[in-house]
């Protein structure tokens, strides 16, 4: 069994036995400098770009003027998919729009997938998410270039709401749209520097679950949601 020291010593041996261009002067590992980052485009451009890329990535893209309009859209989506029950996360944006009330009024049930908030236990939560027709979540950021939403699970924000139901509705506000992946990673690094615990999980979701593993024919919804909606609130 190789312990860390032994394993790394073996690598050092391999490196020193090679006559590759290792300069002995290189004391510490210094990665090459980043190229200058491109100038930030104005937010309206980012939204226009997102609208384009979202379609290319097979999101159903919707703009909403305000929270009320967004809630109405979500109710319509849930109806369209015959959802008796919708599962959701505790993102602020969903609280602000009073989604539960809107769904209940339309004759549907809205379940918050959260144990830490005094809701369901682990097994019940998983069963509920797996049986729901629609999962609704907020997001942490949206990348305009690739129409990717960043989801960082934490208290009240289960990983399952965007994964187990066949339909996922992601709700973002216009100010969450950033230009590129690099922006999201920089944001995460900032959050990490402030966080007490250094662990975090993040998913970038860029459209429906896809496969082309049989005869290179595209099929959506193979394991994750096959139908995805992106609702952006505001200008």
């Amino acid at each position: 069994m190789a312990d860390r020291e032994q394993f790394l010593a073996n690598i050092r041996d391999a490196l020193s036995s090679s006559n590759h261009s290792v300069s002995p002067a290189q004391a510490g590992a210094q990665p090459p400098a980043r190229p200058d980052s491109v100038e930030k485009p104005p937010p309206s451009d980012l939204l226009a770009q997102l609208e384009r890329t979202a379609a290319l990535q097979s999101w159903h893209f919707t703009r909403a003027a305000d929270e009320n309009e967004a809630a109405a859209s979500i109710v319509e989506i849930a109806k369209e998919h015959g959802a008796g029950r919708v599962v959701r996360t505790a993102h602020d944006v969903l609280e602000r729009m009073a989604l539960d009330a809107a769904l209940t009024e339309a004759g549907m049930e809205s379940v918050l997938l959260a144990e830490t908030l005094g809701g369901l236990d682990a097994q019940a939560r998983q069963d509920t998410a797996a049986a729901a027709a629609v999962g609704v979540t907020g997001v942490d950021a949206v990348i305009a270039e690739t129409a990717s939403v960043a989801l960082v699970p934490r208290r009240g924000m289960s990983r399952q709401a965007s994964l187990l139901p066949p339909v996922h509705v992601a709700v973002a506000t216009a100010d969450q749209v950033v230009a590129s992946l690099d922006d999201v990673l920089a944001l995460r690094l900032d959050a990490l520097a402030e966080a007490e615990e250094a662990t975090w999980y993040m998913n970038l979701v860029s459209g429906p679950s896809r496969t082309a593993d049989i005869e290179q024919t595209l099929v959506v919804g193979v394991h994750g949601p096959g139908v995805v909606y992106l609702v952006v609130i505001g200008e």
Partner: protein
Amino acid sequence: MTEVLSARFKSQAAEALGNVTIQESLDRLVNFRQGRVDAIAEYGQDRWDALSDRAREIKRDTLEHLDEYLDQLSRQVERAGGHIFFATDAQEANDYVAKVAAAHDVKTVIKSKSMVSEEMGVAAVLESMGIEAVETDLGEYIIQLAREAPYHIIAPALHKSKEEVSELFQRILGTPAESDITALAGIARQVLREKFLQADMGMTGANFGVAETGTIVMVTNEGNGRMCSSLPRVQVATMGMERVIPRLRDVATYLPLLTRSATGQRISSYVSFVTGPRRRDEEDGPQEFHLVILDNGRSRMLADPELREALYCIRCGACLNACPVYGKVGGHAYGWVYPGPIGAVVTPSLVGVPRAKDLPFASTLCGACRDVCPLKIDIPRMLLKLRSDAVEGPAETRVPRRVESLMMRVWRRTVAGPRLFSLAGKAASAAQWPLSRRGALRWLPPPLSGWTRSRDFPRAAMRPFRARWRNHEGRHGR
């Protein structure tokens, strides 16, 4: 470790050449090639080249300081509450995974696609312990049911027709015959959904391991990787030691190179960043996280200045798609986990040249692999080096005759007509044919002249795969 059958290259290749289903499935590689070309055009060639240069530069630096970055990665994983295991070889890695599974009394393991776990052959090891180990990537699931090795790095079941998949499902799952591909995927979804919900342990690979933060990055499309890293109590990730990258923001350099080269996607459906187990205040996620970092011969490649560059590989599969030889002999001919041009370098390097000495000859040295590689890895140069290792003498005088004549057969078929020619790779930029600019290739045997002539062959019609892949609004109900 997964058994090495590379010594049977000749018979395995001949088999593929005579199999119509396989030849038809290999024809479909045109979709990947066209997707890549379009995706790079969208990104912008200049930007692409800059990204590619930067990616090479980072890899060079990373490998020169590999011990330091691995040390940092492992300490950051531990800091995040994860466990680290350094495995010298596949056996050690398998033993560790088996130990973790036993300690948690695991009954069912769900696996997402990982070339390193294929290298280890860990599924077989778990099954020998009475643990159900289920591959959950659709392609991997199909070949697991068929008890075969992956045919392609990106598309493991590339060689299977829908009829074969239907028969397989009928035979093993007892489902009715099905000719619709969406319905076939639906069967797999149903069967595997149950496994996801009941599994105790998830095994994943790692496309990148970020030293700075102790994060592993998984690039997937189906969602099974998210299941494996979210639902079970324990997650075990395996990665080759060369997959470390220095900083989180380096992901922004490698990710576009990977997805655009592999399938022509601007990004995959899911990119998961996993840093240790679930946090205390999280709703779900594994309670325990293990990262197994594997050497298994890689330090030998690191030590060899002529082979080190092969460790730059990000496993995008573009060189397979571009290779006229892979395009005819297919993945199983290569006899181990890594097929195609990069496999012809990696396999002899990892398992030893004597066990795979035909592989370096399984190439026309046309240079298409190097031209499409997002890391610009000089595969032909390494194949030449391995050739001379294989024969211990000047390569041009000792080429094993039977492999050479097989290559000529491949050659003739490749240039025989426009349809077959399409295989030979518009992925490579035809205008910059390497023959004119690479001195090393001058001594090549005659078939190469056919290659140069083939430049003027008409381009085969290509199905608009990229459009299908990306623009399928409204088709999701199919």
